C-alpha cells in the first residue's frame, strides 16, 4: 500500500530553490520555514518569561501600594549610582549583542566573536556589581530572614541618614521590599547567569566559524533572550531604585 494517498502533486519546492544547508532539519520544507518557526518559537518562550516575571511584578505593585513608606525608605537604601551604572552596562551589553547579530548576518566572523566577547564581559561586570550590592545588603542585615534588622529604618538618624523615621510596624514591612528585591533581581541574575553560559558556548562556536556562513539562527535567538533580560532590568531599575528620592519633602 502506498503511504501517501492524499491528492499529492508532484512537489514543487524546486521552484523556490533554497540552498540546502547542513543545519537544515529534515522535517522542515524550507530553510525559510525553519527560520520563521524558530523566531516564533523563541518569542513564545519569551511570553512565558513575561508571565513568569509578571507574577513578581504584580506582587511588587500590590505591596508598594500597601506599604508605600516602607518601600520608599527601603528603596532609598539602594545605590542609584551603582544601579544606573549597571543599567548602562546592561544596555551596552545588549547593544553589543545586537551588533553581534549584525556581524553574523553580514558574515564577519572576527567582529562576531569580538562582539560576543564584549557582551559576555559586560554581563560579568553587571553580575559583579550586583554582587557588590548584595554584599552590602548582607552587611547591613537587609537580607530577609532571621538576621533581618529594621533599626536603620526606625532610627535613621543614628545611622547618619536623612530619612524620616518609620514607625516600627511600617519598618517591618521593608522586609517585604527586600524580599521582592531579592526575588526579582535574583531571578534576573539567574537569567543572566544562564545567558552567560550560553554566550560562552556560542562564542566558541562562532570562533569555529559556525555562524559566519549564513546560518545565524542561534545567535539571533539568543539575542532575543538577552534583550529580554535587558528589558526586565529596564523595568526593575526604576521600580526598585527610583521610587522616591526626595525624602521628607
Amino acid at each position, binding site marked *: 500500500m502506498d503511504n501517501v494517498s492524499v491528492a499529492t*502533486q508532484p*512537489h*514543487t*519546492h524546486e*521552484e*523556490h530553490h533554497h540552498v540546502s544547508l547542513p543545519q537544515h532539519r529534515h522535517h522542515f*520544507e*524550507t530553510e*525559510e*520555514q525553519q*527560520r*520563521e518557526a524558530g*523566531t*516564533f518559537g523563541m*518569542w*513564545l518562550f*519569551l*511570553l512565558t518569561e*513575561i*508571565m513568569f516575571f*509578571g*507574577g513578581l*511584578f*504584580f506582587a511588587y*505593585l*500590590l505591596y508598594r*501600594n500597601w506599604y508605600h513608606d516602607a518601600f520608599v525608605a527601603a528603596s532609598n537604601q539602594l545605590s*542609584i549610582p551603582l544601579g*544606573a551604572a549597571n*543599567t*548602562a552596562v546592561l*544596555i*551596552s551589553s*545588549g*547593544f553589543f*549583542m*545586537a*551588533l553581534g547579530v*549584525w556581524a553574523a*548576518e*553580514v558574515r564577519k566572523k572576527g567582529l562576531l566573536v569580538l562582539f560576543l566577547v564584549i557582551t559576555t564581559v559586560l554581563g560579568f561586570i553587571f553580575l559583579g556589581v550586583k554582587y557588590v550590592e548584595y554584599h552590602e545588603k548582607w552587611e547591613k542585615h537587609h537580607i530577609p530572614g532571621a538576621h533581618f534588622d529594621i533599626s536603620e529604618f526606625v532610627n535613621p538618624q543614628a545611622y547618619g541618614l536623612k530619612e524620616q523615621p518609620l514607625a516600627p510596624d511600617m519598618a517591618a514591612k521593608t522586609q517585604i521590599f527586600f524580599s521582592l528585591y531579592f526575588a526579582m533581581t535574583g531571578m534576573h541574575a539567574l537569567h543572566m547567569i544562564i545567558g552567560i553560559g550560553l554566550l560562552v558556548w556560542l562564542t566558541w562556536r562562532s570562533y569555529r566559524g559556525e555562524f559566519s556562513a549564513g546560518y545565524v539562527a542561534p545567535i*539571533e535567538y539568543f*539575542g*532575543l533572550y538577552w*534583550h*529580554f533580560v*535587558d*528589558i526586565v532590568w*529596564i*523595568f526593575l*531599575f*526604576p*521600580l526598585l*531604585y*527610583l*521610587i*522616591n*528620592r*526626595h525624602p521628607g*519633602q
Partner: protein
Amino acid sequence: MSQYHDPANVTNPEHAEHHIISPATYIAVFVTLLIFTGITVGAAYIDLGILNPIVALAIACFKAVIVILFFMHVKYQSRLVKLTVAAGFFTFLILITMTLTDYMSRAWGLW
C-alpha cells in the same frame, strides 16, 4: 489558491522577509537608551508627586519598546510575531487588572 505554490505554507500575514538592521540604527537606539536612562535617574530626584512613578514607568516602557522594535527586530518581523508580543503583554495586563479588581475594591465596603 495562493497556498498551492507556497511549500512552506507561509501565508502572508505570517511571513516577513529577513531584514538586516544596520549598525547605525543600533547606535541610534543605544544612544537613545542611555539618554533616557539619564533622564529617568534625573526625574527621580525631582518631586513630581504622583507623576514620579508614572514618568519612570513611561520611560521604562519607551525604552522597552525600542529595544523590542529594533534590538529584537520586531519592527521587521511578520504580523504574527507582533501579535504574539502583544498577546504576551495583554495577558500580563489581564493578570494585573483582574487581580486588582479584588485588591482595589476590598476597601469599598464592609467586607
